Each structure stands twice: as C-alpha cells, then as structure tokens.
C-alpha cells in the first residue's frame, strides 16, 4: 500500500537505511542496546536487494583475508549465530565443507589455504588425500586430487535469519518503514533530518546499510563516497529434493582471487544448489538469468557430482553482490556527522551480519552513542521452514497443506501475512514460507494462493475476473 507522503511521526536515536540482512542485524543490535531505532526500506518488503538470493552458507571465515575487517566480522557473526539461533527458532545444518582440488595447480594451493584457515582461527582442519576426500563424499566425479574438510562451515536459512533479527528488533520497540525511500537529508550538528518518500524523519545517528546503493546514499547524504559499488551477479540452479542425498558436505572449489567459485551444497529447504557465478555488471536492479550460463552451471555440477545428470531442476535464481573496487568491507564512522557507512558487504554478509552489527555499535559508542541495554528483551520465534526440522504440516491444527511440493500450510501462510513483519509481496511470502518454490513452481497451488492472498499483497497475483 504505497502511503502518501506525510510527516512521519517521531524522532529516533538511530535510523538504519536498508533492510537487507545487514540492516536487520544492525536494527536488532541497537534495539537490544537500548536505542530507539527506525529501519527505512524503499522496497515494499525487506530483503529485496543483495540479500534476496545467496548460497546460505554460514561461513567460518577460513578463507577470508587474515587481518581484514571482514574476517573479524565473520568470526564474531558466526559465534553469535551459534549462540542465538535456537532462541529465535533458526535452523543450523551442520554440514561441514569439503574443499576439493581438481587440478595440479589447485592442489598446490591447498597448504597455503590450510595455513590461512589456521591464521583465521579455524584450526580444526586436516589435509585429505584423494581417497580420503572421496571416502567422505563418494558421489564426487573423477579427477579429485586432494582436499580438506572444514567441519564448522554450516548451512542456514538465508531469509528466516534476517527476518528473525528484525522481528526481535520490532518486538522490542523498533519501527519499520517499508515502501519508504531515503531521498536526501542533512545533519544540523545534533540531529539528522532524513527526507523520504513517506515524509521527513529525524534521528540522532544515521547508518547507511543500503547494500547495492551504499555509495549512492553516501553521496546523497554526506556528499561523497569512498567506494563505488559494482554489482557482481551470481546465478544458481536449484535441484529437486532427491538430489540432496547426493552430497552431505558443502562442496567448495579451491577459491580464486575473484570468487569463491562454483559451490555444490544442500539447502535448508532440502534441495541442492549449484552456483554461483561471478559476473560484474553495472545494473543494480536486474539479476538476469542467462540460459547458456545456466547450462554451463549444470554441466559443471555434473562434473562435480555425476549423479546430478539424472536430477530435476526445481528453480533457477540469481543474486547481486554489493562488490566494490576494494576487497574488504567498507565500514566507516564519520564522527562529526553521526553517520556510519556499512558498505560493500560483498559475499559474506549473511555470515557476518550479527558481528558487523556489533562492530558498528562499537563504532557509534566511540562517538558518544550510549544507552542502557534492555534488561529482559523479548525473543520472538520464527516459524521453522527448514526441511531438517519439524514442519507445521506434521502438526495438528495447521489448516491443511496449500503448497504441496513444499508442504506449506494455510496456518503458515496466514502467519506470514500478519504480524509486525507481514509479507506484502508474493516474493516476500515465498521467502517466509517457501510457497510455490517447489518442483511444480505453482502449477498446483497458484489458484488457491491467489485466492488466499487476495487484497493482501501490494501486487496481487491476479485480479477479479469481472474487473475489466
């Protein structure tokens, strides 16, 4: 429901621009630390930018650059996720990763990688021979030369995690403004006044977590940006659930300078994905799927796991990494301006978000932001939609299954359409429930879903037949 521009009520301690995984985690951290937070998101729903599509790996940071800010944020974010996931109802699939060398050159890089992992504090790693690698993953194709296992690389749900972070912020007093784009603003030495498409808003501190638009927001609000975003596209193929039986580990290639390379891993939803590619582009909006690239991904997937050849493709998707000319995160506190840029969180933001949020909070403390942390914060639970945990369809009173492939119940859909973080788009509803995301892609349930969501989405799935 695009609200007309109006004076937004109230003034906040902190305004977070952008509700990607980073903005959601920052909103949570500042709320728990006692601040009054507003989260401002231009899209009708949260997670509409870089956080829309990723590999959903909870990285240990074993292959991150030693000493980098990114590496520290990953370590801290990883640790906090392990600590809080149960309390928020978030899944954790302890898959472990297997780095596999397929060529002589890759094999030669392994010792350095293992050393790098140890330098990054990931010590539980031992080199594996070809036979040992294959013993761990018998489905691997021909040509495995060596490898090593990273036992604590895990899989999570890319969407329920940020949802839970923001839900906890909202349950403890934060405000979410969706469909609200920041168009400008200024700092008067004490307070920020932000101009948005829904009216002005004032805040003590502004945090730019605008992802693919981080540089643009900097330019708009503080007159310049220290980096330029150049989106890096990653395309994926999702295989149907039987394919998940083909590999236990997250199968990682030996990373190159530019990318972590083509990964094969399960998903929290019980599927198996192959991807991502790494393709630089100028377009910040469109992550276009390219048939030839998808075919190549398929072929690569079948080299890694030959049994993939007989498996059905359930879905295809692509995401955009907010990459910049720098390798590391671009996080800067502009002290005189009460402004923090949290930019270029390129390819590890899901893992680092909770740690990045803590880092940003510490930066703000440096320029005088100090509140009393909440004594007994509320811990709302998200509905678990991991295939590796009990699902609603197995429980009484679920209202019946609506989406048959993903076994999404009416109760789950109703829950996702209500509450403080109610889905407002079909895409948002999918991220919360998985509805229509299975093998039939809506063949069976679109009609029932269109009826169920009638009048409740900003972009309806369909209009009444007699509305001519």
């Amino acid at each position, binding site marked *: 429901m695009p609200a007309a521009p109006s004076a937004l009520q109230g003034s906040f301690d902190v305004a977070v621009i952008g509700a990607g995984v980073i903005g959601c985690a920052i909103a949570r951290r500042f709320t728990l630390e006692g601040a009054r937070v507003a989260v401002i998101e231009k899209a009708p729903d949260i997670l509409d930018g870089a956080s829309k599509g990723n590999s959903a790996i909870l990285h240990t940071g074993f292959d991150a650059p030693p000493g980098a800010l990114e590496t520290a944020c990953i370590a801290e974010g990883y640790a906090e996720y392990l600590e809080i996931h149960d309390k928020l109802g978030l899944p954790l699939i302890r898959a472990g990763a297997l780095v596999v060398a397929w060529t002589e050159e890759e094999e030669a890089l392994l010792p350095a990688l293992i050393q790098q992992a140890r330098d990054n504090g990931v010590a539980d790693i031992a080199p594996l021979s070809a036979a040992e690698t294959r013993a761990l993953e018998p489905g691997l194709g021909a040509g495995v030369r060596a490898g090593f296992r990273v036992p604590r690389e895990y899989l999570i749900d890319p969407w329920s995690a940020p949802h839970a972070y923001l839900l906890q912020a909202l349950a403890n007093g934060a405000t979410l403004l969706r469909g609200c784009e920041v168009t400008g603003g200024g700092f008067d030495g004490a307070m920020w006044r932000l101009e948005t498409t829904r009216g002005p808003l004032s805040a003590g501190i502004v945090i730019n977590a605008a992802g693919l638009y981080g540089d643009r927001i900097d330019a708009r609000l503080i007159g310049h940006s220290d980096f330029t975003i150049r989106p890096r596209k990653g395309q994926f193929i*999702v295989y149907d*659930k*039987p394919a998940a039986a083909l590999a236990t580990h997250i199968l990682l290639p030996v990373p190159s300078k530019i990318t972590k390379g083509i990964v094969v891993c399960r998903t929290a939803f019980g599927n198996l994905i192959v991807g991502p590619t790494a393709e630089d582009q100028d377009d910040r*909006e*469109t*992550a*276009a*799927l*390219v*048939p030839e690239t*998808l*075919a190549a991904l*398929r072929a690569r997937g079948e080299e890694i796991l030959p049994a993939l050849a*007989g498996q*059905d*493709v*359930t*879905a*295809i*998707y692509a995401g955009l990494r907010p990459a910049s000319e720098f390798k590391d995160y671009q996080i800067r506190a502009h002290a005189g301006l009460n402004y923090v840029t949290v930019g270029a969180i390129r390819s590890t933001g899901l893992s680092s978000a909770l740690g990045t949020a803590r880092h940003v909070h510490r930066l703000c403390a440096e320029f005088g932001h100090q509140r009393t942390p909440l004594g007994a914060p509320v811990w709302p639970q998200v509905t678990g939609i991991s295939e590796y945990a009990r699902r609603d*369809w*197995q*429980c*009484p*009173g*679920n*209202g*019946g*299954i609506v989406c*048959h*492939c993903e*076994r999404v119940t*009416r109760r789950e859909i109703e829950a996702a359409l209500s509450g403080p973080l109610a889905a407002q*788009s*079909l895409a948002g509803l999918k991220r919360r429930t998985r509805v229509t995301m299975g*093998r*039939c*892609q*809506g*063949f*069976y349930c*679109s*009609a*029932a879903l*269109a*009826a169920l969501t*009638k009048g409740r989405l900003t*972009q309806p*799935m*369909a*209009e*009444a*037949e*007699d*509305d*001519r």
Partner: protein
Amino acid sequence: MTGDLPGFADVVIVGAGPAGLAAAAELKARGVGSVLVLEREAQAGGIPRHCGHSPFGMREFHRLLRGPAYAARLLARAQAAGALVKTGVTVTALHPGSGLSVASAGGLRQITARRVLLCTGVRESTRAARLIGGTKPGGVLSTGALQGMVHLQALRPFRNPVVLGTELVSFSALLTCRHLGIRPAAMIEPGPRVTARRPAGLLPRLQGVPLLRNTSITAIEGRDRVTGVSLQTADGARRRLACDGVIVTGGFRPEAALVRDSHLTMDPATGGPVVDQFGRCSDPAYFAAGNLLRPVETAGWSWNEGRIIGRAIAESLGDEVPDFAQNMKIELQGDVLKYILPQTLSACPAPAALRHFQLRVTRPARGRLILRVNGEVVLSRALSALPERRITLPLNALPAGAEGVAELSFEDGPA
C-alpha cells in the same frame, strides 16, 4: 477431518482424478469391502476440475461435458458405488507392504491397506526446468495454474500474455484466455511444427493469435510483473515482444514425487513407476494407473486405465492373480523411442489389464518398429509417427510365456 479417516481399507487410492475415481467405482462394483480415495485438494476430480472446456465424458457418460461437470459426475459415481472419498488429505510417504503416511489439517498419521493404487496424474514442466532466462516477475504461469485461477477462483492473472508451446494443452490455454475475453500476443513454438493434431492447430488463426514457429523465449523481462519477452528464431534473429504474462504450457511430467521417494522402482523414461500388464509396481501391493504412468494421455484414457487396473486389483484380492515375479523386461534401443509401457511383463495366465504397449517417439519417425526376444525378431511393423502422439502395440505381439529380455528398436527407412 483426520479423526474420521479410517486407519485401514482394503484398497486405498491416492488421487481422485479420472483414474482414481474410475478405479474406486470399479472396485466397489466388484464387491471389494472398503475403498478409500485420498485427495489432497479441497475438491475431488483432478485436472478436469479446472478444464472449463469440453469435450469430456463421451466414453464414460455418453455425452459431451465440460471438465468441471465431468469431474462432478465421476465423483458422484464413485460415491454412489460406495467408495469413501476424503479430500484435504495428502499422502506423504509409501511404505513397503502398503502402509501410508498421510497428512491433513489434523497433522500426520498412518493408514494401512491390502492394496494401494497410485493415481497422482501429471503436471506441466516449469520455466525453471526449461532454463528460460531473464528475470522472475509475477505472471509466469502454467496452463494448469491459469485454469485454476480462472475456473476455480474467477481470477484473471494478466491481460496480454504469450503462450509458449503448441501441445493440446496449449490450445486449452488459448480457450481459457478466450473465456477471459483476452487475446494472447502470440503463440510460440520452438520447433518447426505445431505439436498437437489438427484441428487444434487452426485455433490460433480463429482467435487472431499470431503463431510463431521456430521461435524460442530466451528471456522473460520485468521486475514485479512481466513486461515482455525476448524471442530468438532458429536463424538467430532476436526481437522483443511486449506482454504482461507468459503461459508455459505442456512438457508434461508425471507427478511422481511420492513414488520417487519410496521403495518402488521408477522408470526414468516415463517419469512414472515401472509396472507390469496389470499396472502393478515393483512391490506387488502397489498398483498405478492414469497419467502417473506416463506423459500424457486424455482423461478418457486415464479413466479407462483406472477401471481396468481397478478390476485387476479386485482380482488380486481374490487371489485370482497370484503373486509372482515380473519375468520379462522390455528394453528400448536407440534414442528414437522415448518410452514404453508396461515396462515389464509377469508370467500370469490371467488376461492382462493393459492389452497394449504404449509408446512415444522423441522425433518425427518413419520406418520400422522391430521387437526381438532374446535376440530373435518376433515382430517387425511399419511406423510413421510424430512426437507426443499415441502409438500402441498389442501385448500379444510377444509370444505367450516368453521369458528373458525383449528389445524394441526403431529403424529409419521406408515404412
């Protein structure tokens, strides 16, 4: 709802489409004690529920019906015969020896049966499975989803879509559009010719819809809603066509997730379970009928299969069809023959339920079909066929009581 679900039935049928409902009526007519049909949708009837057009029912009811009326009659007949039809119940797992896990609004529970008949039908393949590029806006639908929106919910998902495909079902998509009072921007066929038989191929012209052959969709455009498609012709020429929806039709695949996740043997060629001439699966307590067996046949054909396989099940309960090993496997040679059904034959004196082998070809084929048993030619027959068209071969082309391996091949040449 689950409270009044019996925990046992002589025969449980999974899926209340034409095949399942026909089998239910037949089983009751043959005196089987308890017949329970489980259907996951809120309404029984299967695909015809949302086929707003005719012709359905000539063979079954000797009259011309639209899909929904046909579905209602099939249900009424099964219920009148004494079958118990439960909707809103999803079978989630098949266990050896005919135990089923079922889910409903009440949660999860188990049901046992002496025989289980699987009739879960077919669906169309997706945009993702076809690796069609571009973005992922709203308004990309299968024919089935479109029909459901229009005929079950009185909703209209778009006003100016394109139709991808020229199978029979693609023309149903055109009819559904006509019902909505909208005219598709184009009908798009990657191949050189319309897949469906005449007279369906005349429909686009009648509706004033341009038919683009040798053309594929390389990308779908739009952020929230479809705004257009990129097209490429066989000679490499590209162009853009504005539209607000894409109907991705046909490319049928059996809805076989349940079978695939079970102990039953699958046939990768049909995408359904391996069956013998009685429709019996690799676990003799399980049978299958209807379009789950293969892509794709008509409602009438599926209905008839439900009936004759239902009869075979009734006889198996009376022990007239004894349990025995499946002793002959039919293998396809080369890449012209796409699938064959049944895939195995059991040594059994009882008359077969399926009297014909059903075949399809992968490309237009003109030549000879040759059947060999243990290396010896037992049949050589002229064949001239197009993809997606029904081809049958009498089961008795195989010598009675033959054992071993039968091989079917196709050789190009003068028919």
